[in-house]
């Protein structure tokens, strides 16, 4: 596989994120092309033809989302880039925000033109400092150069953009919670229908796309949807930014062509498991995706079809590597503490269920586990599935049952012997 790159195409330097250098790389050429040579409908058609799926976790086709918004229906439309990157293990959007902020801004301008959006937003998580400063500086550069505001590039197209900073809430990465947060309220997810593309921000049609998904738009417009389809797999075109962390020799953000061999990525690109240890498991796409064992990943390729067949998903591209010797009981404890902490409290199954799961795992870890605790955790996970407004309840259940399915013997051992079979180890020393 050629491993084509579409986003990480330039060497990162101290100044590669600036407007001058972005333009020297051909930046804002796609915006020129869209505004001068294409109708909004043609831009949407190109994005639809590319077959690109969402990179935030749900893999929803971007074209299908866009096609719901009618550009000339006489109402306001809104566009929001989801930069609330909070799924544990995920730090790939940060790469774009820090190193290629203009790629996101140009893509959002093209999207705003296609969807006839006058006001666009980037919702960025509140903890991000450098990414925010880079993005804000890029936006000021773009305003000063006339890429935002009235009469952009001398055309009738006008667009304003606001970088909206969150204030510490995992659930605000969920699209409907995100817009509720922009409305100045608690970030509670909303029931669908109506879809957000019908009634979203301020009750108007709203498109919310992940930062990475949006950032592909400039390339798609420059090179065409058909060219994009030639990259990746037929059902899942393009590339993915994978952020890899945990027990791995070379952690970081990598761009892979979709369909890249999983084991090759781990062993060659990322230098293998930390300290040459054996691989115990990999959480492939943020902690809400089901863990895979070392054996399971051998035949897999990095695309949604391959991972779905193995019972997991590419999710948000946040890969966490777990070496042999790690205590999966304590690892699940970390996960459940997180979900319990981040449940917004709106839906009973999630609000109560997360607390129950957290309390059960806590008591197992202090040696007070009871017979039936494993079944009880399965039961609570299943009870959450599909019974909450947003996907967080489901996700926590998948993460829990995923770990229980693969490592049940460790949980049984812990409950029976009141201690970890792996000495409670989480850390794998870097210098082993």
């Amino acid at each position, binding site marked *: 596989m050629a491993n084509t790159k579409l986003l990480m195409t330039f060497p990162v330097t101290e100044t590669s994120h600036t407007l001058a250098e972005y333009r020297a790389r051909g930046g804002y050429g796609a915006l020129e092309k869209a505004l001068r040579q294409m109708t909004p409908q043609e831009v949407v058609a190109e994005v639809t033809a590319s077959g690109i799926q969402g990179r935030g976790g749900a893999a929803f086709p971007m074209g299908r989302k866009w096609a719901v918004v009618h550009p000339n229906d006489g109402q306001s439309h809104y566009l929001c880039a989801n930069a609330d990157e909070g799924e*544990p293990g995920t*730090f790939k959007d940060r790469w774009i925000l820090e190193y290629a902020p203009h790629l996101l801004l140009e893509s959002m301008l093209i999207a705003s033109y296609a969807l006839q959006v006058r006001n666009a937003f980037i919702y960025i998580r509140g903890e991000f400092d450098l990414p925010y400063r880079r993005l804000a500086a890029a936006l000021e550069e773009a305003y000063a150069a006339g890429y935002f505001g009235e009469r952009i590039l001398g055309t009738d197209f006008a667009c304003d953009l606001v970088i909206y900073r969150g204030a510490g809430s995992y659930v605000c990465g969920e699209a409907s919670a995100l817009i509720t947060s922009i409305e*100045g309220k*608690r970030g509670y997810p909303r029931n669908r229908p109506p879809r957000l593309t019908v009634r979203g921000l301020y009750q108007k049609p709203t498109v919310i796309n992940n930062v990475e998904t949006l950032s592909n738009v400039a390339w798609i417009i420059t090179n065409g949807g058909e060219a994009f389809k030639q990259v990746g797999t037929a059902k899942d075109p393009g590339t993915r930014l994978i*952020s890899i*962390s945990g027990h791995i020799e070379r952690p970081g953000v990598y761009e892979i062509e979709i369909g890249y061999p999983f084991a090759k990525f781990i062993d060659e690109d990322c230098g293998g498991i930390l300290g040459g240890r054996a691989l115990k498991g990999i959480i492939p796409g943020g902690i809400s995706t089901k863990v895979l064992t070392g054996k399971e990943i051998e035949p897999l390729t990095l695309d949604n079809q391959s991972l779905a067949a193995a019972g997991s998903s590419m999710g948000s591209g946040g890969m966490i590597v777990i070496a042999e010797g790690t205590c999966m009981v304590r690892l699940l404890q*970390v996960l459940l503490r997180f979900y319990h902490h981040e449940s917004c409290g709106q839906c009973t199954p999630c609000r109560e269920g997360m607390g129950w799961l957290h309390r059960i795992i806590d008591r197992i870890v202090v040696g007070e586990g009871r017979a039936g605790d494993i079944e009880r955790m399965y039961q609570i996970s299943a009870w959450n599935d599909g019974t909450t407004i947003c996907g967080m309840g489901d996700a926590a259940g998948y993460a829990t049952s995923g770990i229980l399915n693969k490592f049940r013997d460790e949980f049984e051992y812990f409950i029976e012997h009141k201690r970890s079979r792996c000495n409670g180890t989480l*850390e794998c020393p870097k210098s082993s």
Partner: protein
Amino acid sequence: MKHLIPEFEKLRARYPAGFESSFVLPCLRRIQEDRGYVADRDIDALVEYLGVPRIQIEEVLSFYGQFRRKPIGRCHIQACRNVSCSLLGAERILDHLTKKLGIAPGQTTADGRYTLSTVECLAACGTAPVLMIDDAYHESMTPEKIDALLAALV
């Protein structure tokens, strides 16, 4: 808070008109940056300025983890202890901080200098374990690096 109103007014240029409530988060963030926390009188002033119900501001303040209703230490140290950081020693880092500062997470040193907190994933997993000191990330932490950082802060 009133001295910040000219700044708030400038924010409006790029927002769609007529949605005052969207300014709740940006205003509260700025107020906290200014005072270190959000005081009752800030809420009163914001209710008056934006014309949104007081309960809405209270709800927002109690929902989002970064907002504070009380002052904290001059230096806020937040340690991530989510999965990737835990796999590379977050517990050891937190233990070190607890011993070094003589306080548990959630507490402030008696001299009002440091507040220690735990925090969930900061999206810096490739350079774990990570600390956030005030606004800045400090990555690939070790006890030695922490000692050097704290020494530099004094």
